[in-house]
């Protein structure tokens, strides 16, 4: 496990691990469900290796760690560039293989902004794509943009990923 304070709830057969804002979790436990709430302009990124059954989830607040280098050093998960690199490394360290990684993303919403200053969500997604490209990884699925907040879940048994928006949950 990586990351800060988390809420762990046991539900029926699954253990729900909540990943907060600027937090990250890596798991090798097929009985776990990783979930992150409140994705506004933040991005939630899941990575899963179906063969090793190793995966993780990170909830990144801001695009670039150079904005606050000290904070990024203390908590890489706060920023998309450092957080996604930390997540890739985390799952590899836990036994995943680079060639098996499935990467999915949800979030990156923005207000109805006509002057572009609030486009943090779009920038988070752009930075994510660059980081993945540099690491020779592609997005398997995405649900980004718009104005609605999202909840992202990763089921560790088979890597099922879901996004909940305005009470509707769909597979990603």
């Amino acid at each position, binding site marked *: 496990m990586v990351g800060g304070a988390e809420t762990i709830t046991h539900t029926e057969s699954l253990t729900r691990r909540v990943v907060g804002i600027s937090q990250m979790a890596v798991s090798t436990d097929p009985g776990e469900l990783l979930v992150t709430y409140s994705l506004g302009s933040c991005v939630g990124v899941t990575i899963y290796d179906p063969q090793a059954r190793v995966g993780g989830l990170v909830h990144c607040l801001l695009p670039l760690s150079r904005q*606050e280098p000290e904070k990024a050093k203390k908590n890489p998960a706060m920023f998309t560039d450092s957080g996604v690199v930390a997540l890739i490394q985390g799952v590899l360290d836990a036994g995943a293989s680079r060639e098996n990684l499935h990467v999915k993303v949800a979030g990156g919403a923005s207000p109805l902004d006509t002057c572009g200053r609030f486009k943090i969500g779009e920038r988070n997604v752009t930075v994510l794509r660059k980081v993945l490209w540099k690491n020779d990884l592609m997005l398997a699925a995405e649900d980004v943009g718009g104005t609605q907040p999202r909840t992202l879940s990763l089921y560790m048994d088979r890597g099922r990923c879901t996004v909940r928006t305005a009470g509707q949950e769909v597979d990603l």
Partner: protein
Amino acid sequence: MNRRDQIVATIETITALPPVAVQMIPLLQNPDASLKDITQRLSHDPGLTANTLRLANCSMHAARQPIVQVGDAIKRLGTRRVLGLIIGSSVAPIARTRVKGYDLAEGELWRHAVAVAIGTEELAAVLGVCAPPHAFTAGLLADIGKVVLGTFLAVDAQRITTRAFDNGIPFDQAEREVLGIDHAEVGAMLMAHWKLPADIVDVVRWHHLPDQCASDRSVVGLVHVADHICALSGIGAGVDGLNYQPSRQVLEDLKVSTDTIERTLCGLMERLEHAEALLAAPAGSA
């Protein structure tokens, strides 16, 4: 009676503030009230006394020596901050309830309220401007109208959301089109009904339409931008999410850049870790 009139009529039936707040709010706005009067009244409420001492001794306001007398705590904080504390702790139990119509779980609206209040101060600090003491309280109360609409009136925001998304319009505009009133105006009417200061009522009223505020726009502008920054974080986000329109004029006036927004968001998250506990105590308890 149309929907707007029904809503306005309901506001006047909503539970009054706790008796101590009803006594203290006019007293703290009266320039002739003495420190002795204020201290005496406040001392009758053990929960508020404890919260006042705690706030005066927290790192932001703390003196070298710990403050143990409530009179000293009031002197250190100033009457406007004490007023904010009383309003905050009186409104918290209402703001903490589940707001079913807006899909806000128990405690979520309050988390958003605390974030907007702290975000307002953080934004002012990043911009290098001075936020007057009522800015925090106004930020805390900005979305209280959602409780009135979503709980007391059981408005189903789904109709409003559908209208907003189908027509590509901000959520508050969709509220006005569907209900004849938006949550900002409802909140302001409730605050006026509770006889809160006019400068706070004005900020609540115009926090989504700051360009239309006829009085001093400096605080309403800060709260408007802070509310948008908090929406980015997703804290306490309901069905309305980020579906609002930032005012170009306010962003220009306050010189808000993307960098300002990111730095505020970063500072806000740090301050929230410490501040939620401070604001978590229910009214009347330590």
